[in-house]
């Protein structure tokens, strides 16, 4: 098996190229093969009959953003874990102590996020305008004590 560095990566490059070609072919075929009939009815967005209300650009709900934030910061923690896991047997107990401090501090952040109710999507009816979730249920996070 080719052991030198570049030989291990060459097949990956080949595989990526093959994957890209196959995917492009898939998308292109349908474009070429299918019959092209342009008419007004087909052009309207698929809406089971009713014309789509409001512009497609619906206002935003902060919930999505909060999930993405919490995801980034914990993703970094996950990526920190990988070199730690690989070198763990050499670090023995001291490695465990290091990581414990790191993880505890970040779990504090997690509990804080949990307490502030950023994670639960209690009242997310898809239909209503999600801008600023004017949800009726008083979602004041202070009163909700820890589960």
């Amino acid at each position, binding site marked *: 098996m080719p052991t030198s560095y570049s030989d291990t990566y060459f097949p990956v490059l080949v595989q990526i190229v093959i994957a890209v070609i196959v995917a492009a072919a898939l998308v292109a075929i349908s474009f070429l093969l299918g019959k092209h009939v342009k008419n007004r009815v087909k052009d309207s967005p698929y809406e089971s009959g009713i014309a789509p209300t409001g512009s497609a650009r619906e206002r935003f709900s*902060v919930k999505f*953003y909060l999930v993405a*934030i919490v995801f*980034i*910061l914990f*993703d*970094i923690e996950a990526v*920190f874990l990988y070199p730690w896991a690989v070198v763990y047997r050499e670090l023995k107990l001291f490695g465990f102590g290091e990581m414990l401090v790191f993880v505890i501090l970040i779990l504090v952040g997690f509990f804080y996020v949990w307490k502030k109710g950023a994670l639960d999507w209690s009242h997310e009816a898809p239909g209503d305008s999600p801008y*600023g979730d004017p949800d009726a249920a008083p979602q004041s996070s202070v009163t909700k004590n820890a589960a």
Partner: protein
Amino acid sequence: MPNAVPLSWYLILSAILFGLGVAGFIFRRNIITVFMSIELMLNAVNLTFVTFSYQFKQVDGHIYSFFVMVVAAAEAAVGLAIILTVFKNRSTLMIDDVNSMKY
């Protein structure tokens, strides 16, 4: 094709990317695009770190660029939070409209 790429090519590439980031920061008006050009500059810095770690054959460069990534992520998180609050209050993303405090 020469098999070895002189190290300075990488450094020139990172200088070009850094320059593009600065140009993006100065010329663009949409706040999010300005923020993206800052991320581009940080990427250019990462490339420089990894290039020099190749030159010295040490792994320190990788560790520095890893810390730069962590900081860039934390900055992106807080930055976009600020951009969200600005959008909530002014519902515009153009830089020029965000200067209510006149001279």
